[in-house]
């Protein structure tokens, strides 16, 4: 790539714009360094690159923002209504069966209750205690609740 009077402006422009291959860039740079005229042209052309004024900012950006909460609230509201309806339906279907079971438990099972699980095994030490002391009531000795509390001051 040889620079001449006809093409040098476009080639220097392409160099500045990054349109040349790496190999062409090196070739052009060599010619720029060899020629005083091209060196000056390149120097001025490089200065035409402008940079943004970062200090210039739009001061009302927050006014342009749109609230996210409105739509989310609507969705949550809709979901909660749907969930409530579903819950009421489930209660209305399941409710009578549960209540029937509960009333059965309350009326019949408490009086006839006899533990058959591990809780029965857990009550063995208490039974031994009652056999020794002849009482079904156990008091906690040294309980602070027996005396009214008085301030030390």
């Amino acid at each position, binding site marked *: 790539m040889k620079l001449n009077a006809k093409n040098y402006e476009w080639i220097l422009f392409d160099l500045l714009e990054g349109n040349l291959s790496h190999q062409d860039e090196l070739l052009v740079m060599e010619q720029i360094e060899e020629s005083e005229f091209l060196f000056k*042209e390149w120097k001025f*052309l490089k200065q035409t690159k*402008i940079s943004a004024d970062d200090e210039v900012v*739009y001061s009302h*950006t927050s006014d*342009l923002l749109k609230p*996210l909460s409105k*739509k989310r609230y609507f969705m949550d509201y809709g979901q909660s209504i749907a969930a409530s309806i579903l819950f009421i339906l489930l209660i209305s279907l399941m409710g009578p069966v549960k209540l029937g079971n509960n009333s059965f438990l309350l009326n019949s099972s408490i009086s006839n209750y006899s533990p058959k699980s591990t809780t029965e095994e857990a009550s063995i030490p208490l039974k031994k205690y009652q056999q020794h002391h002849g009482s079904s009531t156990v008091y906690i000795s040294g309980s602070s609740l027996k005396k009214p509390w008085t301030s030390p001051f």
Partner: protein
Amino acid sequence: MTTQEYNICVQTHTDGIYRFILKNIKDEFEAENIVQNTYEKLWIRKDKIEFKTAKPYLFKMAYHEMIDSIRKQKNRVSFDDIGEIAAEEELYNNTMEVVKKAMNRLPEKYKNVLLLRDYEGYDYRSIGKIMDLSDSQVKIYIFRARKTIKAYLQKLDVLVL
């Protein structure tokens, strides 16, 4: 595009659009109005626009809003004034100031392609989509813009020397 994505666009691109507009229109109030109108349009059409293409779309809308505004004002400096630049015996210490002054005297299309190229780093195709130009037109406009600014710098350099 969701509301959340719209808000991301606001937070990410607003300053860039504002700078781009303000470079063309020296009126801060008008630039703010254009930014606001651009986002209003985006909000209205957000369901039809994909988040990925939102940035060029925003710049395109802002660009067209700006063109409308400029047409209404019609107080822009014409390209013919560029010949009078050398007659100004102003000395600049900061090269960037000189470049910006030169850029402000460019025709609208030249200035806009250069701003989109240098400020936003857009390629020729993206700039073309924003400004309804072909890739080659964009390249030629950028070339002419740089050439004009370079000539301005060279003339000032001669004056200073």
